């Protein structure tokens, strides 16, 4: 697969603070790449360097194998931190202005406005928009040039659940078109739902990178419930049990390697117990993320 972005030894110091420390990363074409990390872990600083608004202390990066320049940036649609527009211009004029900067055809403005459902409000001043509309206008602006790469930094920050769902749906729609998306977020649920690959940053250092699919492999957790008073002891007597947690009235059984939920079910059946509830739980990205952070 073609490499879209390659970062090598990228470093940024603000005084004594190491915002980004020796970062190495590759993003391939077609990936939806999630950048995870707690607040202040250097996600936005990294993206700022990739878009040339922050000067790196050392290290290099390249887009599409080219050295970075403003020509390359025109091929990338990016929203960093907050949506930024001229508050006294209306949505339409803001997009027209960005079209002039990106040197693209203004004919694409109605298309992107339609995509983010802002056509009706296009003649209203930007400052009258709600936060969700501002975010959507920012995504529309990023899509103006039909870019091959889209960078979104916390695109659902401060939105209500409906707004979050809308943005997530929009990201899916865009990803289906085969665009490479780099998504920085601290909302793990969001990353798990839309991303194919992810990287974890902590205090400016990369501590993990890999596909999202691999999350959840390894030990299984099974949630069990049955109408038996001594279920706890019975579960403990199962050979495949490594630990048991009681949560929300059900038992969370972590299984040893080689044991599946099927084995547990069979074991219960042999004991003459029929489970009223039995669910195999994949390990969530959240759990994995906390583990990765704890290990580092």
């Amino acid at each position, binding site marked *: 697969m073609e490499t879209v972005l390659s970062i090598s030894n990228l470093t940024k110091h603000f005084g004594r603070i190491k915002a980004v420390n020796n970062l190495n990363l590759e993003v391939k074409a077609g990936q939806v790449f999630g950048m995870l990390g707690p607040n202040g872990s250097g996600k936005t600083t990294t993206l700022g360097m990739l878009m040339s*608004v*922050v000067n790196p202390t050392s290290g290099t990066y390249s887009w599409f194998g080219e050295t970075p320049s*403003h020509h390359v940036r025109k091929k990338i649609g990016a929203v960093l931190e907050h949506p930024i*527009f*001229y508050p006294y*211009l209306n949505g339409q004029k803001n997009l027209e*202005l960005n079209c002039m*900067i*990106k040197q693209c055809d203004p004919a694409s403005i109605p298309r992107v406005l339609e995509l983010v459902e802002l056509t009706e409000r296009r003649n209203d001043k930007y400052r009258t928009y709600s936060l969700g509309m501002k975010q959507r206008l920012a995504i529309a602006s990023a899509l103006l040039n039909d870019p091959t790469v889209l960078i979104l930094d916390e695109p659902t920050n401060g939105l209500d659940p409906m707004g979050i769902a809308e943005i997530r749906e929009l990201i899916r729609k865009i990803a289906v078109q085969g665009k490479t998306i780099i998504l920085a977020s601290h909302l793990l649920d969001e990353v798990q739902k839309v991303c194919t690959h992810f990287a974890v940053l902590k205090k400016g250092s990369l501590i993990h990178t890999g596909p999202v699919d691999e999350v959840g492999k390894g030990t299984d957790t099974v949630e069990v419930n049955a109408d038996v008073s001594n279920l706890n002891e019975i579960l403990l007597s199962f050979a495949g049990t490594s630990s048991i947690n009681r949560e929300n009235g059900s038992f969370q059984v972590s299984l040893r390697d080689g044991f599946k939920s099927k084995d547990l079910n069979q074991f219960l059946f042999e004991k003459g117990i029929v489970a009223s509830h039995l669910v195999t739980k994949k390990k969530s990205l959240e759990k994995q993320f906390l583990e990765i952070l704890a290990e580092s």
Partner: protein
Amino acid sequence: MLQLLKIDLKKLTSYRTFWVVCGLYFITLAFATASGMEFLKLLARTFADFGQKININRIPLYHFPDVWHNLIWFSGLFKVVLAIMVVISVTNEFAYRTLRQNIIDGLSRSQFLYSKISTNVLLSLMSVAMIFVIGLITGLIYSPSAAYSNILTDLEFFPAYFLEIFFFLSYALLISILIQRSGLTIILLLLSQMIELIITANIDDELPWLIPFFPMRSIWNLIAIPYPRYAFQEIKDYIDIGSALIVVAWTVLFNYFSYLKLKKADI
């Protein structure tokens, strides 16, 4: 370059403050420069002995070629209004963080600066055109003779006037980029002349040769005040290359410092 000018004008032409400030500037400029004779009449009415000592109708305020130098020196006093507009336009880009978004969207840092400089050139050219038209009209009204030789004399004051305005707008651009906040920048802009006067007054005894090289002073030296000639005093009624070069050097430096600052900054 034209594309960059269009980008900056796109930002400004939908901005009401821009129209208000520029409107005030050009209207004030037009009325103030065109009403010199009315002002002299007012003086004559107010001070009883003014009109008796001098016959105001014989003061050739608007006679070719005096009119060029007279109007240009006077309209130079208004340039601070235009400079405040530049400060607002540039500091807005920092306040709204749109400078950052412009770069992200694919403008280079130098292109951003060029777009602001090209607006400065345009505003300076508009001032020059304005004063030329007003000078021509008032000159034709008040001059006893409209001979071409008289009209075409002293036109070198126009390039000097352009330089004066463009120099000052470049200065406004630089301090806006350095300070980034509109209020503070406007205060510094208004106090610049005063601060420089305090400095030059203090080094007057030790380093008098240095004083013509100060930026604000270089403007006063470029276009000297013309009115004392009507009190039969000697004035500098020409543009000398030396003072013009000092102004050009400052203008280049201001824009170059703006470039350096923008190049290095994390935005």
